[in-house]
């Protein structure tokens, strides 16, 4: 998607930096997200993708840099603030409480309660059943600890948690890494559907096929820095691979580099 006049910028992250004890995990990265796009963030292990995205989801404080949501500067110092802004995150680890059932996990931290403050488990189960009917109609195990669910079912729970609360900005960290082919296809379908609903999605992925299948724009990170952001339609997978592996900007990549890649 080329930036048209109608696009609405949801997120702008400017000059973000995070360091851990002198190591620059993220160094002056600037990146943005518009409504209805999938913006993939790729890079090797330790490139800083997850750390960058955690500053947006409230799980990691940035040392410097500014975040603008709908053009307004915000300070996201914990996950609660992020959720308040309509930012939902599906973590690579899924971040599920294994001993609690699916509705309990979907509503974790945002439980529905009765007027006197008791947990309203029935309403939470009802709402979860409705979300699941959309995401994964085969899902039936609403009353068992999520530890006893399959990988795909657990993923459904993690996704249900993100989409139930009308997220406008969705962060997906390796959403298909632990899934089989059928389940992966299901998640891809879901991402396309969410995109049509005008949600902006940051997609972190190792899977170059996922990225080319789903993304509108691709940002490549290398050793904490942003190598560049490209429109998917302007590049080939080889270009992106070269950016990931060599950390070179798109314009700097030579034919030799590409040959070396396959050598």
């Amino acid at each position, binding site marked *: 998607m080329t930036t048209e006049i109608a696009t609405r910028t949801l997120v702008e992250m400017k000059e973000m930096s995070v360091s851990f004890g002198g190591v620059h995990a993220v160094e002056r990265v600037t990146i943005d997200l518009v409504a209805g796009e999938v913006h993939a963030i790729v890079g090797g292990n330790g490139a800083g993708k997850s750390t960058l995205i955690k500053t947006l989801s*409230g799980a990691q404080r940035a040392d410097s840099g500014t975040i603008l949501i709908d053009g307004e500067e915000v300070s996201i110092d914990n996950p609660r603030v992020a959720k308040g802004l309509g930012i939902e*995150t599906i973590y690579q680890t899924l971040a599920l*409480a294994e001993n609690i059932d699916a509705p309990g996990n979907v509503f974790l931290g945002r439980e529905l309660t009765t007027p006197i403050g008791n947990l309203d488990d029935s309403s939470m189960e*009802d709402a979860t059943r409705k979300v699941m009917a959309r995401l994964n109609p085969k899902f*039936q195990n609403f009353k068992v600890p999520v530890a006893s669910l399959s990988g795909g079912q657990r993923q459904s729970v993690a996704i249900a948690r993100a989409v139930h609360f009308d997220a406008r900005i969705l962060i997906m960290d390796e959403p298909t890494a632990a899934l089989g082919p059928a389940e992966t296809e299901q998640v891809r379908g879901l991402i396309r559907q969410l995109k049509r609903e005008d949600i902006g999605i940051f997609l972190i992925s190792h899977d170059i096929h996922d990225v080319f299948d789903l993304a509108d724009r691709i940002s490549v990170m290398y050793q904490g820095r942003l190598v560049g952001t490209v429109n998917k339609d302007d590049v080939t997978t080889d270009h992106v691979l070269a950016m990931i592996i060599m950390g070179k900007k798109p314009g700097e990549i030579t034919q030799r580099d590409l040959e070396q890649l396959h050598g």
Partner: protein
Amino acid sequence: MALTEDSTTTFETMTPEEARAVTSEWGVIKRTLFSLEIDTRMFGLILAMLVIWIVFHFWSGGTFLTPRNLWTLTVQTSIVAIMATGMVLVIVSRNIDLSVGSMLGFVGMFMALLQAEWLPSIFGFDQWWTWMVVLLAGLVLGGLIGLFQGAIVAYAAVPSFIVTLGGLLVWRGLLWVMARGRTIAPMDATFQLLGGGARGTVGGTVSWIIGGVASIAIVLLLIARRRNRLKFGFRVRPLWADIVLMILGPALILGAVWFLNQYYLPIGLAEQYVEDNNLDVDPATLEIPFGLANLVLIALGTAIVMSFVATRRRFGRYVYAVGGNPEAAQLSGIPTKRLIMYTFMTMGILVGLAAAVQIARLNSATAGLGTLQELYVIAAAVIGGTSLSGGVGTIFGAVLGALFMQSLQSGMSLVGLETQVQDVVVGVVLVVAVAADAAYRRRLAR
């Protein structure tokens, strides 16, 4: 319920075909338990306890299953049970509190001195409000100590094992410093009633009323739950199962009241009763039940409140979430540190309550008050199904665990085994119980 561990599937979670398929493979007992949604592990614990009761009954020549002995058993179980309800939350959140025994001693001694020396030196003895002030002071002191230890665990990131191991030494030491090794007695006359004893009971009639109210509550709760699930169109238990539970629950409660109410006042107290009430009867013919002891009601009330907090309130849900996956809890925006601190505060308040009941029962406080109680409390929670790796455990289970251990101990006392031998048996049972539990879980996981 969201948190009953290991009741992996129930009728409510299955399609009709699945339910039929599963139940047709199982034996009658398993099928019935499944329909009633009774946790098979809890059932095992209850079964083991019944076996112990029967064995000791015959071994002791028929003195175990008597109203008098079981009444005493309820009283002896209460103090450990009160603290075990709090220990469940502490352990579920992946922590431990080793300081509860020493803390009980320290807070108990503080309350004893407050009512036997400090308050009387200013206001004189036998003020009507003494017991309330002392009890409140004990709860507050317990809560503050818990808060303090919890804050160190949560914010200074010192493992709870270490913090409370330190607490175990510190509070025991300070108890001695505070009382200089003296025994403080007696307690305020009204305060003593907290501890049971001949006067600290509610009598036969009130016991029946309490049993009746509890029975009605069970029936109403079952109906409300069924209605609520039907309203949402969820699967419910088969109707017969709900009806069985509506009969079984009240029958157990009323049966227990009936049995315990056959423990009558001994002749000396009956004479006193006749005299106090100006009756014109022969005391020897009177059968006046003690009724439930006050501290037993305190323990039951505590268990109900704590169980409610654990399963029906956000606080409880978050404690389980932290225990299940601390990182997930934090990413969900749960203030995990504050939560941990509050679990220790809750534990401290319950220790204050247990301390009050204990010194009221003993009518004194000594330097050894509460020694080794931490181990019994932890053992009760663990035998009752609380997992030391966190995330799993129920209040009800912990109370059962306390009753189980106390049954074992009083049974052994009854047949005349020395305390040293009792310790050996309790130690072995603890390990065996946890091993059996681990094996059960492994089988479930497969």
